């Protein structure tokens, strides 16, 4: 019963309003990228939730491996001087 040609899966990213990033909202099945854009528009923007849509074939997404999360992300944890809250700026200097 399975189709000889199943439509591939696409991941959908939508920019909700000008000035915002594209955000991952979910996926659609489509035969080609143009159809994927239309499907994304019909499935994910019915309530005026978008000004721009990106579609990417799920198979083309390269993801970091959770097993590597320590190596990839731990070292950043102790470099807390990268965060603005690390610094105690006197209240009198309020423009920083």
């Amino acid at each position: 019963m399975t189709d000889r040609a199943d439509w591939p899966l696409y991941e959908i990213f939508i920019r909700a309003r000008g000035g915002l990033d594209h955000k991952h909202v979910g996926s659609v099945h489509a035969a080609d990228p143009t159809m994927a854009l239309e499907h994304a528009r019909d499935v994910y923007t019915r309530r005026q939730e978008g000004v721009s849509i990106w579609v990417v074939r799920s198979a083309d997404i390269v993801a970091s491996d959770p097993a590597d999360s320590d190596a990839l992300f731990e070292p950043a944890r102790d470099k807390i001087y990268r965060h603005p809250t690390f610094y105690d700026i006197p209240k009198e200097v309020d423009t920083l």
Partner: protein
Amino acid sequence: MSAMAPGAVAQDAATRDAMARVTTEQRVRYLLRLADTGLILAQRLGEWVGHAPAIEEDLGLANTALDLLGQARLLLGYAGELEGRGRSEDALAFLRAEADFLNVTLAEQPNGDFGDTIVRQFLIDAHQHELFERLANSADPRLAEIAAKALKETRYHLRYSSGWLVRLGDGTEESHARVQASLERLWPYTRELVEADALERAMAAAGIAPEPAELGAAWSKRVDAVLATATLRRPADVPFAWYGKQGRHSEHLGHLLSELQYLQRAHPGACW
């Protein structure tokens, strides 16, 4: 001099002059043609929900149905006001008889398979695109406003239906054969789209509607372009023609209206 309908947008001299050249009844009939085509087509698309080839197509067809219904409601509302007999959008949709509906006959044709539906949709979308693009400059400001909004929606409908027509025409041997057959079956109903009658000529002369020959040619050119990409053959024109826009319908409209109007007919005067 035709009576001004209550709530009409403030008009300049040129507009008033244009309006004077047609009767209120003509203006109402013209609006009903546009409204009813949208309403009847939306009704057909509503039958597809839950039965389309993929979930995403259920959503796509429903989207088109909702847009068309929205356009129909605006146009029916305007027609009812202009007519001045106190008929609301619902009174017009649910209580008129077959001969008073003025949709093009193509719109009432049954859904058939997905190919039949896409062909029907494409032929009407292409027509509405050219029509609304020109109506956005109508001498009737309210109609122009409705058309401008509808045009945005129609652009998407046309993109969707032409996209599918191309995929089906240039897909598999089976899809090509099926959709060529759909085109042959529905082509006779296109004559009504391009052949102008007295009402359309009068509305064009008044600057309210577009010049019919130019509209017909634009539609034809657009259709040819998409059919070529879809590797489909344009069928020959046939001498026989339908005139749903004059209230002379195929047998299908009666059945469609039985469903559409059933509850209001069964419970006269009830509120829902």
